[in-house]
C-alpha cells in the first residue's frame, strides 16, 4: 500500500526523548495505553515505525516491550482482561476502528514468537496454512510456488526440500524458527513482528536468523523485541528503549548506542542494570 501518509503530530507532554516520528511511517502510534486488569502496562507511548527498516525494542524484562509489540497486530485481543487505549494507525488507518477486520490486520502484520511454535502438521502444511485460509492461491501449483518462495526467502529450502511432508516439529529449534518466519511471509505481510525470536536458540542458529532479518528488511518493515543489546545493535536501524511501561528514548541505533540522551538509557546500555 503505497499511499503516503502524513506525519501525525506528536501530542503535547510526551516524555519520550529522540526522534519519535519518521517520514512515511507504516505504523504511527499515539498515546497508547495498555492495561491488564488494574495493571497499567504501557503508558502513553508515541512512536512511528518506518518502512523497510528494522526497529529494535529493548529494555529490562517486564518493561512492556512485548506487550506493545502485541498491540500492533491486536494479539492482546486474545488475552482476557487486556485493554488497549490510544491510537495505532497502520497506513493511516486506525487498527482499532470498527471497520478494521482483525483477520485482515493480521494478514498484513505477521508475527514470529519467542518459542518456535510450528503447527502439528507437515512442513509444507505449516507454510501453506496462511495462504490456504486467506485464499491466496488459486490452485495447487500456485500454492506450491508460494511455499517454495517462502521457504527460499526464509533460507530453509535447501535443508527441507526433500522432506516437506515430515512434521514441522521434527526440525531443529533454529530450523523451526525459520519455518515460523517462512509461515509468516507466506501471507505476504507488510510488517513482521518478532518477539525475542532468538531467545530459545543457540548462537549459530541466532546468527542465521539475524542474517535473515537483515535480508527481509529489504521487503518488509520489521519490529523486533530483544533482550540482547548486541542483537539490537547488529540488526536494527532504529532502537526504542522501554522502561517500566514508558518509552524513554527512541532514535537511530547508532545514536542510541553511542550517545544516549536519557540517563536511564545510558545506565541500561552501559550495563548498570537490566
Amino acid at each position, binding site marked *: 500500500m503505497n499511499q503516503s501518509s502524513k506525519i501525525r503530530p506528536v501530542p503535547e507532554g510526551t516524555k519520550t526523548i529522540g526522534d519519535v516520528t519518521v517520514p512515511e511511517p507504516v505504523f504511527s502510534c499515539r498515546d497508547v495505553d495498555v492495561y491488564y486488569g488494574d495493571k497499567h502496562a504501557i503508558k502513553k507511548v508515541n512512536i512511528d515505525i518506518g518502512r523497510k527498516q528494522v526497529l529494535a525494542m529493548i529494555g529490562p524484562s517486564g518493561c512492556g516491550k512485548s506487550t506493545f509489540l502485541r498491540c500492533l*497486530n491486536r*494479539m492482546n485481543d*486474545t488475552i*482476557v482482561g487486556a485493554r488497549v487505549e490510544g491510537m495505532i494507525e497502520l497506513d493511516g488507518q486506525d487498527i482499532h476502528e470498527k471497520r478494521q477486520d482483525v*483477520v*485482515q*490486520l*493480521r*494478514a498484513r502484520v*505477521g*508475527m514470529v*514468537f519467542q*518459542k518456535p*511454535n*510450528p*503447527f*502439528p*502438521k507437515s512442513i509444507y502444511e505449516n507454510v501453506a*496454512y*496462511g495462504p490456504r*485460509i*486467506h485464499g491466496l492461491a488459486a490452485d495447487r501449483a500456485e500454492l506450491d510456488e508460494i511455499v517454495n518462495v517462502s521457504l527460499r526467502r526464509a533460507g530453509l529450502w535447501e535443508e527441507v526440500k526433500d522432506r516437506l511432508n515430515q512434521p514441522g516439529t521434527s526440525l531443529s529449534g533454529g530450523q523451526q524458527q525459520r519455518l*515460523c518466519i517462512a*509461515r*509468516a511471509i507466506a*501471507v505476504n505481510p507488510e510488517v513482521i*513482528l518478532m518477539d525475542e525470536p532468538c531467545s530459545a536458540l543457540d548462537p549459530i542458529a541466532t546468527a542465521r536468523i539475524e542474517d535473515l532479518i537483515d535480508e527481509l528488511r529489504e521487503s518488509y518493515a520489521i519490529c523486533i523485541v530483544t533482550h540482547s543489546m548486541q542483537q539490537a545493535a547488529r540488526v536494527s536501524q532504529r532502537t526504542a528503549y522501554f522502561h517500566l511501561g514508558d518509552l524513554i528514548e527512541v532514535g537511530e541505533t547508532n545514536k542510541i548506542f553511542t550517545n544516549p540522551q536519557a540517563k536511564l538509557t545510558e545506565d541500561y546500555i552501559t550495563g548498570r542494570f537490566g
Partner: protein
Amino acid sequence: MSPSILLVLIIALSVLAFQLGKTRAIAVVGGQRRIRDLHSLPGHYGLLTAIWCGLPALLVFLAWVLLQDAVITRLVIAQLPAASQALPEAQLGLLLNDLRNVVAGNVSPEMVAPETRIAAAQYVQLRDIAELALAAIVVSIGIVGMLWVRAKIRPDLRARNSYERVIEVLLFACSAVAVFTTLGIVLSIVFEAFRFFSIVPVTEFVFGTNWSPQMAIRADQVGSSGAFGAVPLFAGTLLISFIAMIVAVPIGLFSAIYLAEYAPIKVRKYVKPLLEVLAGVPTVVYGFFAVTTVGPALRVAGEAMGLPVAGESALAAGLVMGIMIIPFVSSLSDDMITAVPQSLRDGAYALGATRSETIRQVVLRAALPGIVGGVLLAISRAIGETMIVVMAAGLSANLTANPLEAVTTVTVQIVTLLVGDQEFDSPKTLAAFALGLVLFLVTLLLNVIALYVVRKYREQYE
C-alpha cells in the same frame, strides 16, 4: 466367642502392649529423665510392641474368618454317608444349601432330610470348636508377640526404624490390593469361563449366531443343550454403543470446544458443572428414564411415521446411554483442548486465522490423539454399561442392524443368567462368566490403548 468381640479383644491387647513397651523402654534406661539414652522415643517402643502384638493376631483372625466356612463345609461333607458324597455336584449343592439354611435358622431342622440334619448339627459343633480355637490362638499370638518385643527392648534397639519399616510394608500391601483385585478378577472369571468352554466349544461361542441359553430341566426335553452362539450379543452391544457414540461424541466434543474456546469464563464456570451433573446421575436413573420416557416417545414418533418401533428398541437404550456419556466425552475433550499450548493458538491467530479456523485446523488437530483416547475410553464405558441396557434393551438375541428392533447385549445376558437362584455349575451360569471374560478383555484392551495414547499425548506438551 463371636468374631466382633474377638476383634475388640485384639485392639485392647494392642493398647496394653503399647503401654507395656513404653514403660519398659523407660525402665530400661532408668527413668523418664534418661530417655535421651534411648535410640527412639519411648512411644516408638510402645508402637513397635503394639504392632507386633496386634498385627499377626489380626492377620490370623482375618484368614481364619475367611476360610472357616469353606474348611468346615469340607469336613462336614467328608462325614456324610457315602451315598450322599457320591451325589452329582448339582444335588450336593442343593444339600449344602439346605444345610446352610438350617444352620442359619431360616429353615427348621424337621423340614430337611435326616442326614442333612445330622450334618447341620456337625457343622454347628465344628463351628463352635473353631471359634473357641480361634480365640485361643489369636490371644496367644498377641501375647507372645508382645512379650517377644518387650524382651528385646534395649536402649540401642532402633524401635522407630523397625516400626516404620512395618508401616511401609503395610502401605505397600495397601497398594498391592489393586493388583490382587485384578488378579482376583482374572482368576475367578477365567476359571469359570474355562469350565464353560469345556462344555461348549470356544468356536461355537465366538462364531455361533444362535443364543438361547435356556437349559431344560429334564435331560430328555427338546433343546436341552441350549445354544450358546454369542454373535448376536456382540452385535447388539456394538449397535447400542454405536448409537450412544453418535449422540455423545458430537455433542460432547462441540460443547467442550464451545466452553473451552468461546464461552465467557463466567458461563463456563456455571455450565461445565451443570453438564457434569449428567455424569453423577446413577445409571439406574437413566435406565428408568429410557423405559418410561424415551422408549414410549420413540414408539409414538415411530407410529406417526409409520415405522414399527419395538417396545425395547436399541435406539432408546443407545440414545439414553449417549446422554449419559456426553459429560465423559466433553470433560476429557476439554482436558485435551486446554492442554494444547497457547503458543500454537497464537501462531494461528498471528497469521490471521479466524477462531474456528484456529480450532479446527490447529487446536483440534493437535488434540486429536488425546480426543481419540478419550473416545476409546467412552466406548469402553458404553460397552460395559449395564443398568440402562438391562432396563431398556430386550432379552431377545436378534442379529440385526436395525436400531428400531430389540437387541440384547453382553451385560444384559450376564445379569439375566446370574440373577435369581441357580446352581453354580450349569453351562447357563458358566456362560455368564465366559461373557464376562470377553467383556473384561475387550474393555481392558480399549483402556490400555486409550491410556497409552492419552499419556503419550500429555507427555508431548509437558
